[in-house]
């Protein structure tokens, strides 16, 4: 159920590449773990991030969680719809619940990310370990 045309991180972000633009969100597993999401704190459009830095902050009924940059780049757009409807992150994490778009700075970084199959194996392993 994790889309095949996305790449994934160990921290449960997905990234979808179209040309030089990457759309980023959190996976279905991530939203299940977070529970009901109540707000998202976004970065400013135009701000640059390096790989691994905290891009955004997600507040749920259980906890607060960072969204880490899967790759380096500049913020092109944020999904402002989430400001009034954070529930989209729970209901449609790969669609309407996308979080932001980045301008890809270093395409090489994409190679280290997981594909859907590798990510599912990672989730399974994490669930066993816990």
């Amino acid at each position: 159920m994790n889309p095949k045309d996305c790449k994934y991180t160990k921290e449960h972000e997905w990234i979808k590449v179209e040309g030089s633009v990457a759309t980023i969100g959190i996976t279905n597993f991530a939203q299940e773990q977070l529970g009901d999401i109540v707000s998202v704190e976004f970065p400013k459009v135009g701000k640059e991030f390096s790989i691994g830095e905290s891009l955004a902050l997600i507040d749920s009924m259980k906890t607060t969680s960072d969204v880490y940059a899967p790759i380096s780049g500049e913020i092109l757009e944020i999904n402002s719809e989430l400001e009034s409807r954070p529930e989209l992150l729970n209901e449609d994490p790969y669609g309407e619940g996308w979080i932001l778009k980045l301008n890809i700075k270093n395409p090489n970084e994409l190679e280290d990310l997981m594909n859907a199959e590798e990510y599912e194996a990672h989730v399974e392993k994490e669930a066993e370990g816990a």
Partner: protein
Amino acid sequence: MKLIFEKSVSGRMGVTLPKPGVPKSDLNIPEEYLREDLNLPELSEIDVVRHYTSLSLKNFGVDSGFYPLGSCTMKYNPKINESIASFPGFRNSHPYQPEGGSQGALQLMYKLSNYLCEITGMDAFTLQPAAGAHGELTGLMMAKAYLKKKGEERKNILIPDSAHGTNPASSVGCGFDTIKIETNRKGTVDLEALAAAADENTAVLMITNPNTLGIFEKDIVNISKIVHSHGGLVYLDGANMNAMLGIVKPRDMGVDMMHLNLHKTFSTPHGGGGPGGGPVGVREFLKDFLPAPIIEKKKDKYILNYDVTNSIGRVKPFYGNFGVMVKAFTYIRMLGSQGLKDVAENAVLNANYLMRKLKEDYLLPYDVVCKHEFVISGENQKKDGVSTMDIAKRLLDYGFHPPTIYFPLIVKEAMMIEPTETESKQTLDEFADAMHKIAEEAKTNPDIVKSAPHITPTRRLDGVLAARKPIVKYKPSDSDV
């Protein structure tokens, strides 16, 4: 029940003011600050008294029943604390009174600091911080000032993932970066992970001991050694001191600085009943960085010393929450050193007794002897579709305050239970019975758990809606206007 605004009757008054005996003067308030739409409720005195009395009857506190909220030592507050804090000499004292007229108050603060030093092994305390997280910030500010004076720019605070959630927040608030240290399978700090993370950039390790799993960090001396060997400081979050009073001194664990929570360990009111008290204690080499003023004794006089060379400055107006200090002082004096030790022993005994009973029905992820609190998981019940949230709500029907839930984050479906020392075996058994019944219901009649609570003044509240679309201000509906 109706809101106070909805009980308003146009023209009704609680107080009638006499006609002014002086001429009216114009306040010259600029037009833009004047409002016509405040819509304050109009009620008589008895309307107001009845409204708030009926609200207060809906409260649930430790005075009304068992309240096993873990991570926060919600203990019973002995009533003598209140009596002593109400002595006119304490109650009516004013912070602007000169030293000579405040000797009693200063003596109490001086003695309380000394008691806290004796209990923890620290060399000096400031009583200023108003709560635990405020104490954390104060401690970190001192660490920063100390490192700066040494000419070191260390950026990292190491924090085990079993620490209190406020630790990372205080670190970031103080301008540090945080590094998470993983917990091992025994529920304690992974020494290898710590050794790998500690280096010349380590400013402070913030450790909660016993940790939020209720487990004592038995390697604490080695943990401190690792941090010290890299030139870092060890900060103890002393919120769980209830498990260690009179048993072990933080100094002997290698702790350099720490805070205590008077409103947890020392029985002063907590939460909405506060205010709190988060004194910070330090070793001798950090004493000079304490917030000024510090209370000292010169011959037979108590004085406020503002001349603290490297002081980080005040962290609270005046001297902290004085009434709280009186209550903590009273608690310590009432129990004495043996009594404080009994507190820790009974708190630990009660927690272990309850943990063993609940283990029959609930998953115990870290099955070791616990300290003052323990964490069980609702994962067995989750298989029948009943969540920890449902179990917590069902407990309300049985007349108990639910434990802390979904914390610590490292345990799924967590329930964190701290019975405290004052609860009798009978109360613990009653609570265990209720938890057993709920576990049975989860198997035989899960719907009654999932739709709980049933007998409370309101049924299950929509917490998600309240968080997503909060209404924080009364808005009259059309019919009220």
